[in-house]
């Protein structure tokens, strides 16, 4: 499987993550979808790193940094979601409409 195969898998994973983010109503599942998109980008970075004759390790280093950023993001995001769920008693994002009123 060449570079194109890995890229297509990455693109499909990103599209699935985007669909999940837009179509689901559960706040935690939206966070999981964001993680899927992060992983898709990571996969494409590592694939480019392996197949392109650029700086030998840039892709792997960037993938590690994206992992660190994703870990920080999911930590803060889950803390926020749990705080919201604790006050609203629901995980459905449609019902977080207090700012609208």
């Amino acid at each position, binding site marked *: 499987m*060449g*570079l*194109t195969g890995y*890229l*297509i*898998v990455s*693109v*499909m*994973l*990103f*599209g*699935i*993550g*985007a*669909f*999940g983010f*837009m*179509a*689901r*109503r*559960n706040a*935690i*599942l939206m966070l*999981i*979808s964001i*993680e*899927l998109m992060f*992983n898709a980008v*990571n996969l494409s970075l*590592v694939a480019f*790193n*392996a*197949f*392109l*004759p650029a700086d*030998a*390790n840039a*892709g*792997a*280093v960037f*993938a*590690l*940094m994206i*992992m*660190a*950023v*994703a*870990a*920080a993001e*999911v*930590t*803060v995001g*889950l*803390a*926020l*979601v*749990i705080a919201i*769920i604790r006050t609203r008693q629901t*995980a*459905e994002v449609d019902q977080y409409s207090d700012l609208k009123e």
Partner: protein
Amino acid sequence: MVGAGIAVVTLRNIIHSAVAMMICFGSLAGMYALLGAPIVAAAQVLIYLGAISVLILFAIMLTQAGDANLPASFHPQGPIAAVVALAIIGLTGWAAIQADWGVMPQAAGAAVEAIATGLFTTYAFPFEIISFLILVAIIGAIYLARRPEEDERAN
């Protein structure tokens, strides 16, 4: 792996979604190993399978009080979202197929020593920024997770 990804966004029970996400991340680690990046595969297993999955499972179990099967888990804008996602897949996939990447015939792989050296020489400044970002995230998470009663007791 793509099947597991589809299962993540379509399964109705959110715990099943989380388990499908773990399957997806595990197979991604295998793909990293195939691509000759064992350090990234190890980090994937440690961070995603070890830390983030457990964190998400804990969050689900803390927040889902019994009724895990919600009747309407899809947003009414689901069909539009599907169309947009398919458009993203089609356009970027077409671009990925059409582009001439000038690829090397075989995956080169990334040596662990070279990555470690680069992380502390060429990429030292981004590394420090990431460290600071994680520190900020830790402080923010502690602040958000604090109970309100402790606030009042402290004041």
